[in-house]
């Protein structure tokens, strides 16, 4: 991973009370040398790696189980990806899907903090041949 620049997506769970505006303003008030851009899902944060990691750890304190982050490969406003420059957004479908699921993960994190145990894992079984034959047979 490059140690020069780090761009992070800060994504807020739909079940969280925090708003993207709150996240952006809190980062601005930290007075660090990072660029922050408010987005519908949270914010895009960019700057030197160490500073960005520090800001992420601080911003998580607003809602430890409701704020999620991941690295973004392209810089904020990169013409290859930025919508303002008519860039393609191939990662947006994935981000939207995961944003929809974040409330479940938030619930899972809360349960794990309480010390709940996992139930037995359901493993998908193979389809029996006779059922498969019934599906294939044309009546």
């Amino acid at each position, binding site marked *: *991973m490059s140690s020069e620049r780090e761009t992070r997506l800060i994504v807020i769970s739909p079940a969280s009370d925090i708003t993207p505006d709150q996240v952006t303003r809190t980062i601005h008030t930290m007075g660090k040398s990072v660029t922050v851009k408010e987005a519908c899902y949270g914010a895009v944060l960019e700057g030197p790696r160490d500073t960005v990691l520090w800001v992420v750890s601080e911003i998580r304190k607003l809602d430890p189980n409701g704020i999620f982050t991941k690295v973004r490969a392209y810089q904020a406003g990169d013409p290859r990806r930025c919508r303002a420059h008519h860039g393609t957004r191939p*990662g947006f479908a*994935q981000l939207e899907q995961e944003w929809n*699921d974040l409330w479940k993960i938030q619930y899972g994190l809360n*349960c*794990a903090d309480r010390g709940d145990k996992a*139930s037995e894992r359901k493993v998908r079984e193979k389809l029996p041949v006779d059922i498969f034959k019934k599906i294939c047979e044309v009546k």
Partner: protein
Amino acid sequence: MKVFIDPPNSLILFDLVERSGHEPLSSMAAIQEKIDKTEIDMPPMNVTLEDVMKGLKYAGIEVPSGIRGRLAVWGPMIEEAEAAVIMEDCPYSFGCVGCHRTNLMVRYLLKRRKIPILDVNYPNDEEEAKDLVVRMREFLGGLK
């Protein structure tokens, strides 16, 4: 420890691995290395002939170029990984869409490495999400 996540672009897996104090190996970081190079060999994405050769290390020439292209980026990460978390039964739009063969190949390469691997199911409801988080915490907490 370096933990490979599958799907490699997953926000949920990336975040949960990072919360446990490990380094997630994601496709975003691999692509960043490529595009942050000061020398631009092949604009706009810097995909060079070297990448084509890297892909051939993991899949034969008769394999579709999409699989080789993905493996050129993910293959070196799989080699670097010290553990892996694989999410199964994901919906169609989750992860690298449209190439199940690559996913199968990635799982095969990971299993061949004989590193600790955790298989988790995609969470369809809260209880499954709880199982996912608890299982991941136990697995990642046990890695040394």
